[in-house]
């Protein structure tokens, strides 16, 4: 699941520069306070115009790059916030729950929820649906010493997302493990949270 987080971050980075003054990621106050105690806080922000500018550098002749350009062009922004701590237990499960609570139905659907008792790694992936189209993805990765939130805003085709695998340093994504459509994803999420 770390690969998912990494992929999100790399998707951000591939787009190159970003922008802040529009739609920054809002974190609950208690989570925002974590930056005071974190060993390292990383914030990455990219907005739509910058992503569209970056997409111009992808070749229209290369099929994979063309698909990637199409995906990036439609995005409104990509935001990442990551906190790294010196020791375990720096943040509470209640603080993470407060973060997760921002992404509630009917607007948001949790499509992936991973709980690792042994490693203590918890990952949640939320899809935002608008008019039966996926309009955003949020990934929350809570590890023992690290908390990462990735927010991709804009229409996203999951099939296109898997096409990015192997490009721009993004690991190959197994299309079979990705939800085929947002609607199916919601149904899956409703049946059982834990995967």
């Amino acid at each position, binding site marked *: 699941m770390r690969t998912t987080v990494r992929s999100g971050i790399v998707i951000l980075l591939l787009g190159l520069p*970003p922008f802040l003054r529009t739609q920054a990621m809002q974190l609950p106050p208690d989570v925002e306070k974590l930056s005071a105690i974190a*060993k390292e*806080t990383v*914030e990455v922000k990219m*907005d739509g115009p*910058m992503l569209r500018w*970056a997409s111009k550098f992808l070749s229209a002749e290369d099929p994979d790059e063309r698909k990637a350009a199409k995906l990036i062009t439609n995005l409104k922004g990509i935001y990442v916030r990551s906190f790294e701590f010196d020791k375990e237990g720096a943040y509470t499960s209640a603080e993470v729950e407060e973060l997760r609570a921002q992404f509630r139905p009917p607007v948001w659907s949790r499509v992936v929820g991973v709980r690792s008792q042994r490693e203590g790694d918890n990952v949640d992936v939320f899809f935002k649906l608008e008019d039966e189209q996926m309009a955003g993805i949020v990934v929350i990765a809570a590890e023992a010493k690290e908390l990462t939130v990735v927010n991709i805003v804009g229409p996203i085709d999951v099939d296109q997302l898997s096409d990015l695998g192997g490009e*721009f340093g993004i690991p190959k994504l197994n299309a079979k493990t990705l939800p085929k459509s947002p609607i199916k994803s919601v149904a899956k999420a409703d049946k059982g949270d834990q995967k």
Partner: protein
Amino acid sequence: MKSLRVLTLLLCASTVAAAGDHEFRSVVHSIESAYNVHHMHLPLLGVALFFARPAGVGGLKLAVFEGLKTPTDTADVTRVIESSLGPEWHLFVKVRSKGETAGETTLIYASPAGTHMRMLIVNVEPSEATVVEFNLNDRAIKKWMKEPGEEADNHSTHSHRAEQ
């Protein structure tokens, strides 16, 4: 004739470092004013930057400050830097690391312009600061997009080499 070429190269390379554009000089000046410090004079910096630059990178400028006495925090550093930059500069990455006595802040700004992009990287540590600005051409941008992590490492290594 060879001496003339070398002299011309030295002059050109020095000009790259010394000329700088408005924003770079303004950022350097802001740091000097805010933290009561002066950037160091590094002999033959222009030559070093000319030879140390990675492919596709041009207009490399570097300023190093030592002996910062005022404690800095990320919000303060961001405010100081952004007071010198125009709206075309976008904050891309902000990193705050907590040290034992004071923190370290790294800010990466980008300014896209047609087929190239200007990048400004500011790093402020408890006792020293570094400002680097450079242009990436379209080939370098494509390389960044192909292997972003590797390219970031390359730029970091080259900047450190030039600084030394």
